[in-house]
């Protein structure tokens, strides 16, 4: 694989919280346009890895390269400005705000203009608002959430809140989309819908996606590249079939007698 095809490289990253070693020398590469699934038992360090990529944690050791440039020590908002957007394991929406407004906040980094013009809603400020609204409407249409556009996010069922969160992440037009358990707590039908949307995002917008998921059948359905973590270490990296056949993965999931 040529280096330019790589969107994100993680080199020997370790994260320590006091005495807890959350990640130990994890290296991985995400190619442009692919869907990577990160799997592993509880506490394996999946969310920590995502947090490192999104700039929420900084690695104690190692470095990250995004689009060919080192970005190890950037703050979360600077990372977001680079084109990395994420959703959270526990839905983190503005509950009192409408779905539309929630998604509009995803455009924040794209909004420019003076406070005064914005307040007067005049000239360039109005044109800018219209353009942002049009972009958001395309996402609403894409994720089929027209009917809840004006509903306060807090009143929605869980599955729809997850979808709104995805919409907000998409509104930032990210190059790399990080999804932390996008299908947790959903029923089969909601999961299938979510799979369809994730594949659609990847296909339609060409967005590279890294996601954490527990349901192996879902992982097999949507991803061609699986990375398995256990106790903060990478134990497998390859196609779903390779990873599923990997003895270390089987041991991690089924458990082995610790000598």
């Amino acid at each position, binding site marked *: 694989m040529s280096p330019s095809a790589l969107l994100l490289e993680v080199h020997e990253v370790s994260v320590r919280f006091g005495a807890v070693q959350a990640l130990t020398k994890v290296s991985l590469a995400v190619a442009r346009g692919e869907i990577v699934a990160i799997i592993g038992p509880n506490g394996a360090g999946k969310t920590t890895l995502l947090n490192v990529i999104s700039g929420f944690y900084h690695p104690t050791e190692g470095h990250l390269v995004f689009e060919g440039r080192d970005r190890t020590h950037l703050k979360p908002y600077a990372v977001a400005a680079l084109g990395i957007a994420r959703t959270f394991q526990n839905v983190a929406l503005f509950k009192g705000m409408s779905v539309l407004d929630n998604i509009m906040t995803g455009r924040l980094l794209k909004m420019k203009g003076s406070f005064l013009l914005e307040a007067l809603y005049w000239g360039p400020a109005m044109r800018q608002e219209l353009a942002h609204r049009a972009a958001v*409407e395309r996402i*609403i249409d*894409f994720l*089929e959430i*027209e*009917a809840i556009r004006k509903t306060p996010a807090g009143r929605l069922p869980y599955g729809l809140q997850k979808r709104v969160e995805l919409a907000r992440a998409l509104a930032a037009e990210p190059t790399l989309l990080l999804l932390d358990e996008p299908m947790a707590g959903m029923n089969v039908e909601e999961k299938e819908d979510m799979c369809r949307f994730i594949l*659609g995002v990847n296909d*339609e917008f060409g967005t590279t996606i890294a996601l954490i998921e527990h349901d192996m059948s879902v992982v097999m359905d949507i991803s061609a590249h699986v990375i398995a973590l256990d106790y903060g270490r990478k134990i497998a990296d390859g196609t779903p079939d390779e990873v599923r056949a990997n003895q270390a993965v089987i041991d991690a999931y089924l458990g082995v007698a610790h000598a």
Partner: protein
Amino acid sequence: MAGPSAAVSSLAFAAHALEPGLDTFPKLVWRNAERWPRRIAIREKDLGIWQSYTWTDYLAEARLIALGLAALGFRRGDKTAIVGDNRPQLYWAMLATQALGGIPVPLYQDSIEKEMLYIIDHAEARFAVVEDQEQVDKLRRVRAECPGLQSIVYDDPRGMRHYADPCLTSLHDLRELGAQFGRAHPGYFDEEVAKGVAGDTAVICYTSGTTGQPKGTMLTHGNVILTARNAVQREGLRETDEVMAYLPMAWVGDHIFSYAQSVVAGFATSCPESAPTVLADMKEIGPTAFFAPPRIWENILTSVMIRIDDSARLKRRMVHRFLDIARRVERGRLAHQAVPLGDRVLHQLGRILVYGPLRDNLGLGRIRVAYTAGEAIGPELFEFYRSLGINVKQLYGMTESSALICIQRDGDVKLDTVGTPLPGVELRISESGEVLFRSPGVFQGYYKNPDATRETLEDGWVRTGDAGVLGRDGHLRIIDRAKDVGRLADGTLFAPKFLENKLKFSPYVKEAVCIGSGRPCVAALINIDLAAVGNWAERRNIAYTSYTDLAQKSEVYELIRGEVARVNRSLTEDEQLRRAQIRKFLLLHKELDPDDQEITRTRKVRRGFIAQKYATLIDALYSDRDHVAIDAQVTYEDGRTGTVRADVRIHEAEIFAIEGAP
């Protein structure tokens, strides 16, 4: 083509002639574009904004699509399958097909593959114009078994990038092809339109049919235009009216209301953004004419009542108080009685405080005429809307009559009738009590099914299959499906739909099936309404996990038992049917679903099928058991099947004594 029908049709045309040059839909749209070039013809809510198209655009778009189809090799007489939600592009495709002398065949967009295969194969459709990837996927699999389907045109390009199938064309590309074809063949479209005549088949509507395979009802341009025009004149519809196109395009009702009447009268049709946004979109459009089957009126009422029950106590009491007054006033009005002064004053006050705001909130603030049909509407439901000042009227019709036979006139509305015949319609009741009609809208025949045509159509009279009575007031009353009216083992008259409708008037009952023909007593299978009963249960802190679980709660059984008792009590008022009270009932563990073929896509119960599928349950109803275990097969939307297992309880209902009986 059926011979006898052609003769009758021409007779009818002599009585109700079409103006020359305005005898087909393409010619009428042409007239509209000349008469009202800037008037809005159709709207669609896309990306949150209403996109409007004038009659000029309507004609221009249909022209491009028609020329595009011609470039793909469309010949006169070819059929185009139309599949998708109500979209301007699909209405244009319909018009484009008609302009080329072809026949559009609209299909239900939620049909599963097997159903589509049957219709496309039977109709020999060579072309299909569909909304999106979902329909493309279904049609490509259909095409594998039905190679006669030559081209599939799709509107929404989302998800279609990697499809390399040569049979696929995007609507965008089709319009390009059309523009090129138009440059090479100037005048082609105009000549093709000019070739059309009133007797050409305008559309084939496949009726869902409660028994057997669907039948393709052929309607001519003359049929549809005359029926639409007669109704437009009777109802005073004008080019300034507004309607919502939200019911399936495959249903003849939508074809008449959103297409035919819009083209004939020149009014604007609005396509909602998506099915769940219909009510919100309606509020924005404010239609002046609105059609909804009873179940939609019911849904609107249920959603209103749930919201009222959740509101503050003062508001709730005010709404209920004024709704009671409105109901009392409306009841008096329908009975042509004078309304007491006190009530009149309160009613005016209620208009300001409750009725007006409520109507606006429902998007029904500008309604001049609203219709209900298809099934009987609950008296409370009917009174509720009329008492709010919404002019809801009942109408009667079927696919074979180009949708319309009878409509209640303004100011002559009755609860238990379906109205008086439209101009040009003759009604007759056969000796067996069946309703027969003859009209300019009488269909040509069933496509490739002369036997069925002969059974239904005789000397220009159509057998409706409904048992009815023609009153002295000129109003038609429908009792039940003629073949469903039966007798219990002891000879008691029993009309299942009559009972079912009474049951369904309860907000808690979604669907009901009554059994009794040749049996010792009447028993009922009941579907609870998940939204209403779920809300009821939540307010009483009754926890439930699923539909099946909720349906088997003893509290829910008690609730429904009360509803059944209400039906039995009201039945004692009917002299003919009062002996056929419901003795036993059970709550079904799953909702009756068109995917499982238990009800049709227009939500008519398929009795024969249910009797077979739920034989275990029905047997148990007529035994001494108080519960029964059942495995039922369910079909998911993608055609896969699964099994639902449940233990269903059987309860006895309260029976009311008949006065004067031994």
